[in-house]
């Protein structure tokens, strides 16, 4: 019965099916407990957990989500998502206020905010234009090259990017009479942006544009044979994901109140890939799960093993997930659920 109704549902709505059966995650009201936990989190957590674990996980989750959209749906693995996020952060500092008064223009946040998002999205579009000329491993290589080039450019350019020092005292705008630097407002701001990004990706997946992105992953030659301008759709996918990464970048600079080349170095660039794969690329919740696991390991690996060995721990975790669950932590969830179902069946 279930399969028949599922088929009907899919028939009624394009995009409802993916090659491997979609992850059977809880739906609708089943998310209520999770929503309650997130909404009430600041009530029983201290500032460290609210900001450094909660908000930071969500920010990394947003940037990884932008990669998940490109790679999981579109089959385009871009390592430049952190660079796009960094671009938004940099231009928010350059156009607005920072400690580098000689460089920062001091424009109003109402202008700085959309402009920095726009510039970062344009940057992502240009990356898309370049990367769409490649496929597979070459897309990874070219986006990595762009990320490294952007890192060195920001580190060596003092006129615009203030070189090695970057920008400090970059604070979120004050609006609605609230200081968004405070843990509570910042947590909820991050939560709202995360929820919006998540909802956007869930919605987009079944939109016409989302379907074309998934079709790009499956067969570009057929796309051309149907009348699609393949490069145009690829670039549009980079732009859409770039906008999301830019949102994450703004939140990141508000969290740290600073942006410097270290934020967009090779390490953080690879971290985003690790987070996306760790969580799972088959569902938009994956990057957030991966980000939470990453941040927890980042903060508490020191209790398990020497602080300097964090990369060993995260590397081993990554290896274990890739080896035993190609669908990331979400895949483990599905396997556990399937195992439980198998156990229950005889009793039924």
């Amino acid at each position, binding site marked *: 019965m279930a399969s028949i109704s599922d*088929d009907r549902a899919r*028939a009624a709505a394009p*995009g409802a*099916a993916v*090659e491997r059966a979609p992850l059977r995650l809880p739906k609708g009201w089943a998310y209520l407990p999770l929503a309650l936990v997130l909404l009430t989190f600041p009530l029983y957590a201290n500032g460290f957990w609210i900001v450094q674990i909660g908000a930071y996980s969500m920010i990394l989750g947003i940037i990884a989500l932008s990669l998940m959209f490109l790679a999981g749906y579109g089959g385009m693995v871009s390592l430049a998502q952190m660079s796009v996020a960094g671009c938004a952060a940099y231009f928010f500092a350059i156009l607005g206020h920072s400690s580098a008064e000689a460089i920062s223009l001091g424009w109003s946040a109402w202008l700085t905010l959309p402009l920095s998002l726009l510039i970062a999205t344009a940057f992502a579009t240009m990356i898309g234009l370049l990367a769409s000329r490649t496929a597979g491993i070459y897309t990874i290589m070219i986006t990595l090259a762009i990320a490294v080039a952007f890192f060195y450019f920001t580190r060596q350019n003092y006129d615009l990017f203030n070189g090695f020092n970057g920008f400090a005292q970059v604070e979120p705008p004050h609006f609605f009479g609230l200081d968004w630097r405070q843990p509570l407002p910042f947590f909820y701001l991050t939560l709202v942006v995360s929820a919006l990004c998540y909802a956007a990706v869930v919605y987009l997946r079944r939109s016409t544009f989302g379907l074309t992105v998934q079709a790009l992953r499956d067969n570009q030659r057929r796309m051309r044979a149907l009348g699609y301008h393949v490069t145009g759709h690829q670039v549009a996918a980079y732009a859409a994901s770039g906008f999301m990464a830019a949102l994450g970048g703004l939140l990141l600079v508000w969290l740290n109140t600073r942006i410097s080349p270290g934020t967009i170095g090779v390490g953080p660039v690879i971290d985003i890939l690790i987070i996306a794969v760790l969580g799972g690329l088959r569902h938009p919740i994956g990057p957030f799960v991966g980000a939470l696991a990453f941040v927890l390991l980042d903060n508490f690996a020191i209790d398990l093993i020497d602080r300097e060995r964090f990369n060993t721990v995260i590397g081993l975790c990554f290896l274990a997930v890739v080896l035993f669950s190609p669908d990331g932590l979400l895949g483990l969830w599905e396997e556990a659920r399937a195992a439980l179902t198998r156990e229950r069946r005889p009793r039924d």
Partner: protein
Amino acid sequence: MAERSSLSATGLSGARLSGAGVAHALRLEGVSRHFGALVALDAVDLEVTAGERRAVLGSNGAGKTTLFNAITGDFPPTAGRIQFFGEDVTSLPVHERIRRGLRRTYQHSLLFRGLSVLDNLYLAVRGVSRGRYSFRRPRRDDAALRSARELVHLVHLDHVAGTVVANLAYGQQRQLEIGMALAGAPRMVLFDEPAAGLSARERRELIEILRSLPRHIGYIIIEHDLDVALRVVDRVTMMHNGRIFKEGTPGEIENDPQVQQIYLGGGHG
């Protein structure tokens, strides 16, 4: 009745299909395609009238699929000119030729394996209409979605409309391939070995689908199964070593001793 309504909604009976005023739907003049030293197509001249149904036959390596690739632009010709309904499309990219009403199927199904049958057909319809970049989900009464549902019916895949393509039987994938080629308002369809690998029952179904197409849609079919090819076309073109060496009606071709010698195995016997 159901098919008639499908045809109207999918655009298969659209007004622009007739190509009125243009003598030839497709005209190739001296089309060649070289791959290094290999001459896959050698100065091919071909004319197909609007609404005509043509078979292109020949042994393996005769250049049939390369001919299709040259026409669609997948592998543009290295020499010669291609006109589609009077317009020179030689230098147009693939998607522009498709938007002018040219469609094709592939020898090996090229489908979106991660999407459902309905998704595939919806994308096929959307590819030649507006809203290709739409960030909105299609409404239930969306014209393209409605056309896709009707195409599902046209190619006899109603019972698997929601099934992911990767889970379809081979024959069903071939039927879907045909459905995708019929999306929008095709003026000419190139079928590349649509019967390959099909069972006898599926071949009968294929013949039924091809015969039920509106007369104003011309097509060219490459097919090794003569039982299929000769039953669904008006004329036949024979190819050998990248050249066209004979044209005629199915009856003429079937009884031609030279054709039998080259194509039906006499030469190898």
